[in-house]
């Protein structure tokens, strides 16, 4: 079965794939476990998995005879990571400015 390469919009446009990603957002699952949640064949689920993998939404790891699908969390957490980092960063810098200004005042 040919697997086409779809862009991100096309990938999330499909309700079954969105549902698969929702399931995977909770834990990694095998293709068999995913299939149990859908009224479609394993090859059909496998095809969706390949499409999502190709578009970078999930990764596939072979463990023994099973293929485990994992949602790639990197992109999801990026925004919050930036905000958390710079929130702390600025708070630390503003405090440092205060101690420098006060130190300067004392040494006058």
């Amino acid at each position, binding site marked *: 079965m040919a697997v086409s390469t779809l862009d991100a919009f096309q990938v*999330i446009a499909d309700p079954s794939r969105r549902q698969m990603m929702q399931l995977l957002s909770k834990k990694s699952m095998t293709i068999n476990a995913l299939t149990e949640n859908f009224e479609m064949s394993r090859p059909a689920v496998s095809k969706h998995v390949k499409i999502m993998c190709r578009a970078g939404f999930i990764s596939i790891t072979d463990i023994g005879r099973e293929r485990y699908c994992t949602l790639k969390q990197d992109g999801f957490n990026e925004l919050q990571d930036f905000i958390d980092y710079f929130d702390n960063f600025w708070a630390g810098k503003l405090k440092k*400015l205060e101690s420098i200004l006060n130190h300067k005042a004392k040494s006058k």
Partner: protein
Amino acid sequence: MQREIKNEWIYQQSPKEVWDYLTQPELLALWLMPNNFMPIAGHEFQFQTKPIPSLDLDGIFHCRLLEIVPFQKLTYSWKGGSGNGVFTLDTVVAWTLEKHGKGTKLILKHSGFKEANLSIFMGMTDGWQSNIQKMISHLNATRDGSINA
């Protein structure tokens, strides 16, 4: 769903004194980072620090002075990335100084944090329709904005 950071700090020193520490490169370096800042609107400059691998940032912040009102306001762009020319962080830092008794209230607003890529939308497990609607209106707003600009 843009998010921003807002931080306020009260200093005992006058706005003039605090301003110097925001606009003189060698004073700025004492508390923030080494830089080649110049208080000229449109000037492009960089802050340099150690790489931040957890955020995939190479430690160089690329800035452009957008607005300068002496002793009152200073705004610059604040961009960063892994060093491959793509800015995954594309934000704006705005400083406002207000008199506060004999001292200064310094307000920092770091804004413009937004979805770096579409995959962030996938992090939301509910409300697909509304998320996609938001994305569409965001895209429309961006388009309208560029037409107006």
